[in-house]
């Protein structure tokens, strides 16, 4: 059978299967905002864990990680594997409180929650920041689709056409809402893990075994095996900076934040805190190693081309049908992220812009309908940005994460600090984002980075501004504070009366 026919069959099966799941979710869904954007808050552990993991792992994980394993070496596992595992601390710090508030007040988008703590001005600022930084990240997925399909078809499907096919497919998928996405994400997550493991085994076998490959790397480029990586890239500052970047920015990505609204009970979040790091351990192991091993097998890739190492290795080593399945796995990785990003941005447009400012009396059915229209427009925007890829997947991703990570101090203040004021929060976000953008575009001098990444100085500025301006402005009204903190106090700080009751109960039990 000709190769193009094989890849076409695999692609049709792939797209057809996930379309079926998407359609089923669409069919059984109810036309309410909570059902469409938050799957009626009824997802269990397995689906929530895998939708979180599949959403987190994008084209960047599959292609970009292998690319950095290739160009920087195994040292990349620390900042990407270990540091990403550590974000699970946020399931308690942020996730639990966000889940509590979502259950009590029915939030579906991140800025909605911020509005009730800091007011409408910050709601719109959060919405704009999230849209601005997630849109380029969305384009990363379309870029990845373009690369994967180009390789999958042996060049018969050009980059632009591949990106277009996947964009249309995603539009179709997202119309089914959070439930469809969570289900397809779960299957895609499992598929992705399987494909990465298969690709790893294949490269090891073709390379003559791990010991041989490692010996070859050690003789050709020992820096690929040790820290600080090739060219001494991971200085202590960069090492710390990446940890900061993932730990603080990942949970605030709107598509990941929204996943804290969907668990059916608290046990789901607890289990995620335990199992998520273990999944990270495995999932980032494979692409990092594949990239580092690929350096000795296909040398000479530079710039944005390093992101193509995994597809190139598959072309070189795998039988055609297997190569097509593994590259379909990379499509699964990027689609599972992009559909969630689109849904998240759709929810922000619908709830925080349309229903909050344009049509305040919009019915829930109208909101869901508008959400779908926004989603189609967003898909097209993402595709347009992907038409002219200007940087590597990792570079775009890092910039997007920096912009979102700046929101961390304000979000923590919203959930923990009663004295934080609206003006403190607004000025923190504006100051932090300004510094982040000026550093990303290298308008501010490099020494301000303190040897780290733009996230570090941006966070310092955002935190200081929040604290100073909050203390200089009038404290928020008790009514506003009570909305969140009465709930939190009842959970985290039992009242004196409750404490007395618990002590008495303990005493009784002892007797």
């Amino acid at each position: 059978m000709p190769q193009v026919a094989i890849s076409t069959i695999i692609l049709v099966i792939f797209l057809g299967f996930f379309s079926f799941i998407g359609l089923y979710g669409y069919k059984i869904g109810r036309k309410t905002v909570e059902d469409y954007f938050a799957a009626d808050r009824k997802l269990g552990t397995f689906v929530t864990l895998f939708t979180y993991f599949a959403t987190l792992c994008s084209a960047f994980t599959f292609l970009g990680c292998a690319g950095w394993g290739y160009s920087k070496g195994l040292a990349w596992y620390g900042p990407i594997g270990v540091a990403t595992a550590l974000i699970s601390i946020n399931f308690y710090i942020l996730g639990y409180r966000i889940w509590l508030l979502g259950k009590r007040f029915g939030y579906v988008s991140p800025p909605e929650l911020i509005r009730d703590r800091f007011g409408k001005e910050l709601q719109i600022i959060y919405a704009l920041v999230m849209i601005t930084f997630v849109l380029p990240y969305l384009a990363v997925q379309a870029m990845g689709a373009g690369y994967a399909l180009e390789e999958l078809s042996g060049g018969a499907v050009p980059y632009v056409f591949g990106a277009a096919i996947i964009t249309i497919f995603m539009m179709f998928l997202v119309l089914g809402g959070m439930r469809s996405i969570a289900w397809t994400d779960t299957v895609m997550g499992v598929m992705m893990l399987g494909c990465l493991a298969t690709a790893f085994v294949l490269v090891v076998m073709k390379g003559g075994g791990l010991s041989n490959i490692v010996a070859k790397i050690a003789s050709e480029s020992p820096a690929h095996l040790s820290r600080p990586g090739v060219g001494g890239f991971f200085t202590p500052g960069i090492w710390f900076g990446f940890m900061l970047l993932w730990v603080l920015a990942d949970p605030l990505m709107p598509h990941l934040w929204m996943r804290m609204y969907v668990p059916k009970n608290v046990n789901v979040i607890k289990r995620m805190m335990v199992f998520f790091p273990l999944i990270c351990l495995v999932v980032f192991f494979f692409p990092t190693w594949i990239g580092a091993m690929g350096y000795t097998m296909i040398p000479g890739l530079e710039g944005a081309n390093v992101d193509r190492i995994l597809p190139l290795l598959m072309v070189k080593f795998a039988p055609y049908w297997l190569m097509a399945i593994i590259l379909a796995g990379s499509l699964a990785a990027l689609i599972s992220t992009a559909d969630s990003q689109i849904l998240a941005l759709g929810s922000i447009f619908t709830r925080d812009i349309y229903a909050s400012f344009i049509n305040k009396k919009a019915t829930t059915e109208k909101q869901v309908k508008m959400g779908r229209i926004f989603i189609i427009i967003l898909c097209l925007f993402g595709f347009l940005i992907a038409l002219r890829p200007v940087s590597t997947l990792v570079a775009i991703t890092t910039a997007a994460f920096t912009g979102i990570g700046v929101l961390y101090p304000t979000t923590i203040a919203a959930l923990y600090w009663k004295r934080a004021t609206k003006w403190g929060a607004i000025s923190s976000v504006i100051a932090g984002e300004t510094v982040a953008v000026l550093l990303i575009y290298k308008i501010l001098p490099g020494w301000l980075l303190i040897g780290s990444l733009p996230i570090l100085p941006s966070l310092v500025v955002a935190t200081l501004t929040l604290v100073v301006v909050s203390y200089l402005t009038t404290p928020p009204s008790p009514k506003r504070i009570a909305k969140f903190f009465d709930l939190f106090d009842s959970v985290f700080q039992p009242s004196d009366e409750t404490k007395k009751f618990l002590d008495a109960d303990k005493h009784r039990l002892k007797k």
Partner: protein
Amino acid sequence: MKKIHLPFWLPQTKRALVWYVLFILIFILYHDFWSWGTYQPLIGGWLPAWFLYDIVLIIAYAVIAFFFTRKYWPKPPQDIEEKK
């Protein structure tokens, strides 16, 4: 005696302090700069020792997280837990 109110980012109880220390320790151990600059010894002939250290660190974190969710994580109010 006057009750002291600690800032929100500090542990408010002795129980919380234990978990603070454990989690912060993991974050500190991530910065294992003492083993930089070498890939030796190779465990099993292929896995750099520092890489195994990273794997063990993640597993240690997951174990701590497991006990944290069992022993410390406060329960939600009944109306939220039972909301259908």
